[in-house]
């Protein structure tokens, strides 16, 4: 077992957890934490996609780095196998999101069960990404999406309160090629992070006006 366990979390949601461990680090000030983050991450943290496509990168400035109290053996092994199913928080858990990188010891907690069921590119101009959850998301909880090559979409997605779907509108200059795969990472407070490669529908299913319909 490592003598110290560190986690890297995505700032807005505390959901992306990358694990590593090392010893004899004495970090007491913000500059030292930034230095640690730079040492562990460099300029950006690559998030591997579910296919062999290029990794999607999250800039180090978007990440937090915290000391995490040694978890139980079982939690540790589970976290190593599925780190995205964990989040870092204070113990006891505060009503608001904890501040990452503040030097306070955090704990690993499992994300809730409202997992992502599907992620799909949606017909239209501009293109959209539809994330379908197991249950409808609670009000007031921000959800975010990182689309490959783009900064995180940090605004509230369009949402029907009764729907399990969250629809993110991509910037107008994003062009989607039929049948191509795109890296997407979804974050929502308390929900497991989902990083996967999403395949665009075939040309016949895209309703872009300039795209001719295939077949009768």
């Amino acid at each position: 077992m490592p003598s110290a366990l560190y986690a890297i979390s995505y700032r807005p949601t505390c959901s992306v957890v990358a694990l590593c461990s090392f010893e004899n680090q004495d970090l007491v000030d913000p500059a030292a934490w930034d230095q640690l983050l730079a040492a562990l991450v460099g300029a950006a943290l690559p998030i591997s996609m579910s296919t062999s496509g290029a990794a999607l990168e999250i800039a180090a400035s978007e990440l937090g780095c915290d000391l995490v109290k040694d978890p139980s053996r079982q939690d540790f092994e589970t976290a190593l196998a599925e780190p995205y199913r964990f989040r870092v928080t204070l113990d006891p858990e505060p009503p608001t999101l904890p501040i990452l990188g503040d030097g306070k010891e955090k704990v690993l907690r499992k994300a809730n069960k409202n997992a992502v069921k599907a992620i799909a590119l949606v017909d239209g101009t501009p293109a959209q990404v539809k994330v379908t959850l197991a249950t409808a998301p609670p009000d007031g909880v921000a959800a975010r999406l990182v689309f490959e090559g783009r900064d995180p979409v940090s605004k509230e997605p369009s949402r029907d309160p009764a729907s399990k779907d969250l629809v993110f509108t991509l910037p107008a200059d994003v062009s989607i090629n039929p049948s191509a795969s795109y890296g997407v990472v979804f974050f929502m407070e308390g929900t497991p992070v989902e990083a996967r490669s999403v395949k665009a529908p075939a040309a016949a299913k895209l309703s872009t006006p300039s795209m001719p319909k295939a077949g009768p």
Partner: protein
Amino acid sequence: MTGLLRPSFFEGQILGAGDLNAHVTYDRLGAALHERTEHLWGVAAGLALVEIQRTTAAGERYVDVQLMPGRAVDRLGRVIVLTEVRDLEPALLTDQIAAPVAGELYPVYVQVIEVPRTGETRPGKCATTQATQPTQIEEALQISFGPSGSEIPILDQAAAPVADGLGAPALFDKILVGWVAWSPPLGKFARVETSSEGRRVRYIGVVASEVVAPGGALGLRTRPAGARFAVTLAETSTGGCELSFGKQDGDSPVTAVLTVDDKGNLAIKGTLSPPPAAQVLAESGVAFDGVRLPLPAGVSEDQVSQGKLRIHALVSPVPVMPRTIVFDTGAADLAFPLVVRCVLEDRRVRCQIRWFNHNDSSIFVDLPGACTYVLTASGK
């Protein structure tokens, strides 16, 4: 004639003044050549400038400056001795420095000056002219000031060569004893300094290719007394020897931060940078895909980037058990893992596990994984 001439007398010889002066000259030359060839010129002891705080009636502060007794040797090997405290007269500075300004540091020098003296008692004196002839030469000391920066060529002077004999005294055969600052409105000294822009008083040295201790212990110390640093080489009671460096307070034992014994064992209380080839620093732990492996404590990125250290790392995937996986189709099913990649790219972990659907191996998804690692850094 290329050697020294030593006066030699015989019984019944009538001695003239020249014979006696030749004896004195022989001794003077021997002493001067000893100083110039076996030592480096400079202040030998004392001759420190001391400031005495004063206040005018209006409450303005200034200092009086005194030169303490001491001894020095100049570049000609002449000895300068001051046996009593001497005051530095402010008027002397204004006589020698045209318009002294505040903030400048003016070097203070001492210099040999020979002053003929008439003896008080002289048996057999009769002639008036003989009564006024000097019979002693006072090797006196003269204080002078120089413009700021004038100490640079003074400090750089080399000793006069042997061929110069006693040498011809020149205006620049001076010895620096410190600096003073001036207070123009008061016409007084403002303060005393012992250094200026990194330059310091030059002290005497030793010219030697070998230094031998008479009693089994040798020391080099940064100051004659008080808190200082020392390098000592001393034989031990067990028949060995130890070289040590550290702080020393007065005559207390040296608090060594570095020692080397007669067997070649080196002990230090600080760190070696960069680490020697024999020293290997290691780091180990668990890292997830995407994370850069941290360097061992005490190793910097600069040392690695400059090629001063050699890094070796070994990564091994953390075993994972079959579990339910959500495939890209959105379907969740039991899947079996297979590690397809576990490598380092510029110390960044790239670990991917391919999860195969237990019913159909053509359905799979690649997910990041974790690995254990060992990373070592060693000197080249």
